């Protein structure tokens, strides 16, 4: 085993880690935001929206993320150049990059998986609490903002850490569409140094560390959030 290349390539790994964090955090934030309405309409209806949301979750969860990513990057990406005027528009510099496609694909994926989780979270809030809120004269949106959403989030909090680790572990797929995340950097190092194992082991270690940090952060958050028990908080 020869690790001398680390001295040359560590700045690339730092920037790769930064890209990986961006991929993970951005798609988690946007995906979770989408997951709230996707989960909610499956509990409240209207029927049409609920079917649409269920269909979306089924398709996202039933197909490999790699295929979704390639469908979006190569499929959608191959349509844009033919659209009138898009090359001269302000959007073109964004649509030319691979990074936004990766964010878009990962966001949809998070929304699909977390939408299912949020559905269970919304459904798990006791009816009595919602009825009490309505009896107090709250309008539907106020009920959602003050009672339903916070209680649903509290219900699903333990699964959120898993969701984050799951998203972190899907980010290296972005390297297959030329995004230089930390896995992409390790691939580059392997090609330039002709080493097979060391860069792979190195990047595996980085992922283990990042997973550990996520687990620790969530343990800290969970210790600070009041548990949904009688009499507590």
């Amino acid at each position, binding site marked *: 085993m020869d690790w001398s290349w680390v001295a040359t390539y560590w700045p690339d790994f730092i920037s790769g880690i930064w890209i990986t964090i961006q991929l993970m955090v951005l798609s988690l934030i946007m995906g979770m935001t989408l997951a709230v309405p996707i989960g909610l309409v499956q509990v409240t209806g209207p029927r049409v929206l609920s079917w649409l949301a269920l269909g979306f979750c*089924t398709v996202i969860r*039933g197909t490999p993320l790699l295929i979704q990513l390639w469908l979006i990057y*190569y499929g959608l990406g191959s349509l844009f150049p033919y659209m009138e005027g898009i090359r001269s528009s302000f959007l073109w510099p964004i649509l030319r990059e691979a990074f936004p496609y990766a964010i878009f694909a990962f966001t949809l994926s998070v929304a699909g998986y977390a939408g299912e989780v949020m559905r269970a979270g919304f459904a798990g809030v006791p009816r009595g609490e919602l009825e009490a809120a309505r009896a107090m004269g709250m309008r539907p949106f106020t009920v959602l903002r003050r009672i339903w959403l916070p209680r649903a989030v509290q219900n699903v909090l333990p699964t959120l850490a898993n969701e984050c680790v799951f998203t972190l*572990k899907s980010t290296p797929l972005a390297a297959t569409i030329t995004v230089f995340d930390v896995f992409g950097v390790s691939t580059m190092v392997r090609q330039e140094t002709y080493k097979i*194992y060391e860069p*792979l082991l190195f990047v595996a270690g980085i992922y283990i560390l990042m997973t550990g940090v996520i687990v620790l952060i969530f343990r800290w958050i969970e210790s600070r959030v009041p548990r949904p028990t009688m009499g507590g908080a």
Partner: protein
Amino acid sequence: MLTVDLLLQAKPSGLEWLSLSPPGWGKNMLVGLLSTVQIALGAYALGTTIGLLGALGKMHGGPILRGILEVYTTIIRAVPELVLILLIYYAGTDFLNRTLEAFGYPPLDISGLAAGIFVIGFVMGAYATEVLRGAIASIPIGQIEAAKAYGMTFSQRFRRIIIPAMIPLALPGMANLWLIVTKDTALLSVVGFTELATVTKQAAGTTREYLTFYIAAASLYLALTLVSNVFFRWLERRYRRGQAKPV
């Protein structure tokens, strides 16, 4: 736009690309789906076996075996599948060939099917270990004590009590793992195994009909998932017969 239209007229368009006879790629895609299913079935069998042994090792093994299994399940679950597949693929074939060389045999050209099954199965084994350990741990202790009281040996208890009592508890988790395994096979395209994702990549790259082929591949994977869902629902109903309904 005009040039694009002219180009499209000369070539098959849209669904014609998916026809079963050339220039359609339909047949290649179905063959790809078949090898995806083969790899997934093999990997699932291997993963379940590893999982069963791993679960027993974690519950009954000595401190060293338990430590090794703990490292195995923790690392596999913390590292992205893509990285693991590359690592196990290169390290596995390299290790095998070096061992063969040491014993004076020529290096072996490992078939894509066997390597794919081994790689995915080894990864799935870690998840299956946790699922099955949880299922075995939640068998009511009285059932096992009763079997001991009857004088059954460990292998008898395992065959007659633990396995049948565990299956309904493990089924939801194991069904989930099957879906994960079928989707993970797509990652094998990164090391160039011929399965559905690789064929799709080739078809889309050759014809430049990216949207058509990726949507077709996604539909095939989705169909596989939906069929599996029906099967597992039937299996779960079958194994839950005679059990109290969850409240």
